[in-house]
């Protein structure tokens, strides 16, 4: 096993030296982006809800990959655990529980929806064309991130500056728990 891994590592490093880091990053970006978009379209266009959910799953993984590219490996891990591991599973549970038939797919106002989407997209593009993306630079440069590790960086900020929102977030989860039970349990409201 280990000779194989060492060979893999050496060939990747070799390729990186050959092609350069930038090209690698770009290639990976376009791959991830492409898959994300294709799977997203499949989510909204698929007839079968289970297929929609599963393509959403693929999308989540690729988004996680995008996060890794951006040096946010903690977020990537969280993305996979929470979204792919919990939320999607919930969706699949519900879809299978409710045992849906495949009915008519699109809404009456299908054309209007597509049209609106396109128009808004065009406007967003136009808005982008006019904007310069800039802002105050913080001090968490990529080097520092690599040195600290993403987890530690997030931890440092969250438990000091953003402590209160953190507590509120836990309250939100509590409320969600209670609400879900109350809403979904049979007969609890009548009592």
């Amino acid at each position: 096993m280990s000779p194989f891994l060492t060979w893999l590592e050496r060939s990747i490093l070799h390729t990186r030296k050959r092609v350069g880091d930038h090209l690698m990053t770009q290639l990976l970006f376009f791959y991830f982006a492409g898959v994300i978009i294709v799977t997203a379209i499949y989510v909204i266009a698929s007839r079968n809800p289970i297929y929609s959910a599963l393509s959403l799953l693929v999308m989540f993984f690729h988004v996680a990959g995008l996060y890794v590219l951006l040096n946010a490996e903690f977020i990537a891990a969280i993305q996979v655990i929470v979204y792919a591991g919990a939320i999607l599973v919930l969706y699949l549970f519900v879809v299978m529980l409710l045992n849906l038939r495949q009915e008519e797919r699109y809404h009456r106002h299908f054309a209007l929806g597509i049209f609106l989407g396109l128009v808004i997209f065009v406007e967003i593009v136009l808005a982008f064309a006019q904007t310069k993306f800039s802002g105050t630079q913080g001090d968490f440069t990529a080097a520092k991130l690599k040195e600290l590790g993403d987890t530690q960086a997030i931890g440092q900020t969250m438990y000091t500056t953003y402590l209160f929102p953190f507590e509120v977030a836990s309250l939100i989860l509590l409320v969600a728990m209670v609400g879900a039970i109350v809403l979904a349990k049979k007969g609890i409201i009548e009592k």
Partner: protein
Amino acid sequence: MVMLTDALIPLLPFAAFVIIGLFELSGRGLRDRAHWIAVPAVLGSLIFSFAAFGSVLSGGPRGLTFFTWAVSGTFQASIGIHTDALTAVMLLLVTIVSSAVQIYTIGYMHGDRGYARFFAYMSLFTFSMLMLVMANNLLQLYVFWEAVGFCSYLLIAHWYERPSAAAAASKAFIVNRVGDFGFSLGIFLIFTLVGSLDYAKVFAELPKHVGETISVAGVEIGVVTLIALLLFTGAMGKSAQFPLHVWLPDAMEGPTPISALIHAATMVTAGVFMIARLIPIFNLSPAAMGVVAAVGACTALFAATIALTQNDIKRIVAYSTVSQLGYMVMACGLGASVAGIFHLLTHGAFKALLFLCCGSVIHALSGEQDLRKMGGLKSHLPVTYWTFYIGALALAGIPPLAGFFSKDEILFRAFVSGGAGIFFWGVGVVTAFLTAFYIFRLIYTVFHGPSRVEPNAMKHLHESPAVITVPLIVLAFLSVTVGWAGLPIHGFNGIEAVLGPVLSPEEHTESSSALLVPLMLVSVVVALAGWMTARYFYLTRPELPKRLAEQVPALYRLSLNKWYVDELYDRLIVRLTVRVANGLWREVDVRMIDGAVNGVGWTALAWARMMRRIQTGQLQHYALLMALGALVMLTVYLLR
């Protein structure tokens, strides 16, 4: 201290009104006990009026401002009181007659459903009249002028379930309004010229505008003359001068106490009082004075001719009031306002007496007012009979009763002022003859001769109780004595001394003249002639009146039907106005205004019905709208 009692004079009756009114509103009305509040209040005013009179005689005029009512730019209006000799005598008149009438009412209106309401309104009226008399500026005068008119409306329609009473009250108010319109125009004109409405300022400033003219519909007329004429139209309305006299006879629909109080002694005299109070203005315009005298004289004669043939005893006395008011107005127009006010005072006494006596007769006969159904009541109603007789003597002008002195004073002044004055004297003399005639016609038909009373009324026939007869006696006493204030004793004329300084300060009034005694004799002879003629026609040869009426039927009908003035007004004015009002109501009020208002409501509803279709309940419609909104915002952002 003196000022305080002056202020209490009007405020006591007002307090009575408020107290009785509050009791009525609270549901636990005072009912039969209302007079315990009203009568002491007016008696208190009476006492303070005597005090005021005394202190004015010794101390001179004084004033007090209660508060500033309205300020607008340079215009300031305040409510206050001003007491001088003229005001003081008017205060005495109003409070004495008011007290007597209110005590009389206790008996007359006993058991009436609106007993407390009646006393409340009478107190309100007394308050308004007192404030009018004590006003120190034109605005306050006008406000309380309207107030007494309003109280008159309330009181005439006391038995409001009767359509005739309601109609009479409306007629009184509307005809008054016509006069008040002219009055208000006069006030406006004064304000534009002088800039203030205080008596003192107006009297001082107005003479400066004597030469100016103003153009009215293309005709140039002296500004001061115009003012005086406009003010006089107010007096015409309030004092029932021709042609605005039509409301007074119909006002007899109201209970007799208010006929006595309002339509004999107080409210109708407000017009004469106003002329006297504003005599400095009238003096500036001889033309207006001439008009005033002419209208007064015409009214006096006109009303007397109508009184000759009326069959309702109250109407006879009502037309007599109109006629005597004409005398007073004529006197003021001839520059003898002292005589006019003197006659106002004596007339207040004996006319109130006459009305209250009529009331006593009506009360005794259980509501009968037609003298064709009366007769021979002398033995049944002795006190009423004798007081009525005294009142009649006073009205006719027989010495030594009050009416003689005042009426004679007016006639003397008329003759002495020369020129047209002699013509007015002649009219006055003829009217005096007619006056004596009709009042004794009334006495002989009601109290003497065979009884034509209906059997039902005969059963309840009784002399009125003391609460009714005592005021009669008091007023009879006054009718005899008040005139002596005008007696030229040792060259000192009481009334002249009191009112002269106020009403004619520059004139050197001569009460002694070579013509005094001859003219006096003429007055007496004429009055006696009228009396004797009436006695002949109605006592000695009672069949004569009918034969005379048959010989001149046209004249008889003209007199009986009040010279058809009401019918004329109806044809010319009333019908047209009613048609216009109906038309306006239908078109403007119902179609346009109601249509507009309802239209607004209907539009809101229709719009809402349309707009609520947005709430489809469809989730994706809402999402669509949100996306649309976002699109619009983006577009706006992009286009900036």
